[in-house]
């Protein structure tokens, strides 16, 4: 793939995708919840922009709609909800420092390379651009999952989950020019409901074990009966 041959908008898309990837690294590292939420909002915004660009340089007009949808959901609504939740849960000062940040980043980098290697097989000349974008978005997804693995804080896990969604969305938009509209709506609806439920659960967890540290939730296990 020769960068020169790509139209400007595609180059822009690549740049933005790269930034999205970078942002998810930041998200991974970000210790303060509130800041992390802001970062996540930025990621959403970027995704929306990518969508808009793709919509602009293809003739898929319904992408503009989904771009708007993404912007509202990922960049505004969900971050705002999280924000409120965090403040109502008095978590705004909360900061969670990873035990081995360096290792976490290393692993994340490894994931990036892996995801590139994983999508390598689908090589066809005219697909190269798409493939790399898919690689990037896969990396974002995996990093989101990785974040959920290493972060013990419920809200942080939700952020990881949501950034996975972002990665998915990125892939959907860039690789396939967006899903059919009905699916888009369905997905958006599901994500919204999920977010609401998350909110509900924060409070339920909070009132049951008065913390949001998921590591405290280990009652349900088979290990106990080894005694």
């Amino acid at each position, binding site marked *: 793939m020769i960068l020169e041959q790509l139209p400007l908008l595609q180059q822009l898309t690549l740049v933005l995708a790269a930034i999205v990837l970078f942002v998810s690294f930041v998200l991974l590292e970000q210790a303060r919840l509130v800041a992390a939420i802001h970062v996540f909002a930025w990621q959403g915004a970027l995704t929306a922009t990518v969508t808009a660009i793709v919509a602009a340089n293809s003739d898929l007009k319904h992408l503009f709609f989904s771009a708007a949808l993404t912007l509202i959901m990922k960049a505004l609504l969900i971050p705002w909800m999280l924000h409120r939740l965090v403040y109502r849960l008095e978590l705004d000062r909360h900061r969670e420092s990873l035990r081995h940040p360096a290792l976490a980043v290393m692993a994340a980098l490894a994931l990036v390379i892996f995801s590139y290697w*994983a*999508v390598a*097989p*689908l090589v*066809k000349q005219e697909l190269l651009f*798409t493939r790399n974008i*898919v690689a990037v978005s*896969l990396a974002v*997804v995996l990093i989101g*999952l990785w974040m*959920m693995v290493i972060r013990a804080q*419920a809200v942080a*896990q939700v952020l990881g*989950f949501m950034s*996975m*969604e972002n*990665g*998915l969305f990125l*892939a*959907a938009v860039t*690789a*396939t*020019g967006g*899903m*059919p509209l*009905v*699916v888009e709506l*369905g*997905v958006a*609806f*599901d994500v919204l*409901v*999920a977010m609401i*439920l*998350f909110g*509900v*659960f924060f409070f*339920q*967890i909070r009132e*049951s*074990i008065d913390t949001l540290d*998921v590591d405290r*939730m*280990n*009652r*349900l296990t*088979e290990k*106990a*009966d*080894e005694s």
Partner: protein
Amino acid sequence: MLTVFSPLLGALLLPLIPRLRWAGWANIAVSSVTLGAALVLASDIADQDVIRTGLFRIDSLNIYLLVLTAFVGVTTSIFSRPYMIHVCDSGRIGQQGMRLYHAMFQAFMFTMLLALSTDNLGVLWVAVEGATLATVLLVSLYRTPEAIEAAWKYFILCGVGIALALFGTVLLYFAAQRAIADPAMGLSWSALYHVAPQLQSSIMSLAFVFLLVGYGTKVGLVPMHQWLPDAHSEGPTPMSAVLSGLLLNVALYTVVRLKMLVDGSLSTTDTPHLAGHLLMGFGLLSFLVAGLFLHHQRDIKRMFSYSSIEHMGLMTFAFGLGGPLATFGALLHMFVHSLTKSAIFVTVGHASHIAGTQSIDNIRGLIRTQPAVGWGLLLGVAAIAGFPPFGVFTSEFLLLSATMEAQPWFTVILLIGLAIAFAGLFRHLHRMVYGQAPEGQQPVPANMLPVFVHLGLVLWVGLTIPDLLSHWLDRATELITGGHML
């Protein structure tokens, strides 16, 4: 399309019913309507091969799952009426809880039926995700720390899984766009199935990995199964019944549909059976591991949820094995397993009410206290353990003989697994049903009708497979494998 949407209406209307006593009946009514509609649909299918309208496509494979789902829905709602009232009276949940329960029950049914009947993989995804959302609140219905923990794990794990599945779907769509002109049809399963050979194999295999991990989480394949015992054990029992009896089936059904696509596209490559082998691997692993899990159980519902994992593993293995005999057996097993397992969960619900606990060590002398429940549990477990003349034996017999033909050495593993699982179940069962009942253990108002209806059906299937069923299964088999059994 009444089949699909009557539950939706139910979901919307039921919470509005002022008197809870009625809500239970209404719940039954709605479910019955659904079942009726499903049966009508089935009779339509009987003559014409496939019905499709817009997003929906009913063929011989999903119609029988539709009917099964509707049926289990009815019987479960019948059981859940007295059960939930008992729960409500015992003060574990309030009015809101009851409303929520009924609404979510129907919502869940809606998502299940939608997932089964739709032709669009995207909608399918939405429905399965919706099922998670609908049930997650039911899991945490009791608001105990355990319940909330279980719900959270269920939510997160399945959410992640389903997200991965979406990624797979995206890749699928991506591959489809190169084979299908009309982007609107890009996620239509039937359309994809027709052009499967043209789908780019590398993308398909990549997509299948994501879809398998994603939906496999829902199926409860080891090692993505951890949410399953938690969710089953903490939620209200009717929900456990439908989870084990329906949700897992639907997830597996999805996997099978996708496998059909992937097989189609990989048929020309050098690894034509990639999907099959993956399924076999996961199936066998889940089967054995779950069997071993049964041995160290303290919670009765956890135990049976592991048994569900075990059977799901068996079916997955069989579908992976492919071939008409194995597929026929797997479909049959799906049928008998949902019936038996939901029956067992119903019984378990009563049993835990009798003993006032779910801990195996404290459930004693059921036969003495309430013979119906005790014998129901005993027979149900005997059935699920694969004892003839119950139908589970028939399907396992088919699966084993199919394995014997295709992969003789796997048969030994399967048999060992069966023996282990069997021992794991019965070593606990004995202490619960037999022996002296503890002081002051009282019978509870129980509606064992669903249990004996289910077991009766399973028994019937075990003695002789009715033509109607066998023809459905046969047509489904033909659809999946292209081969006949009859």
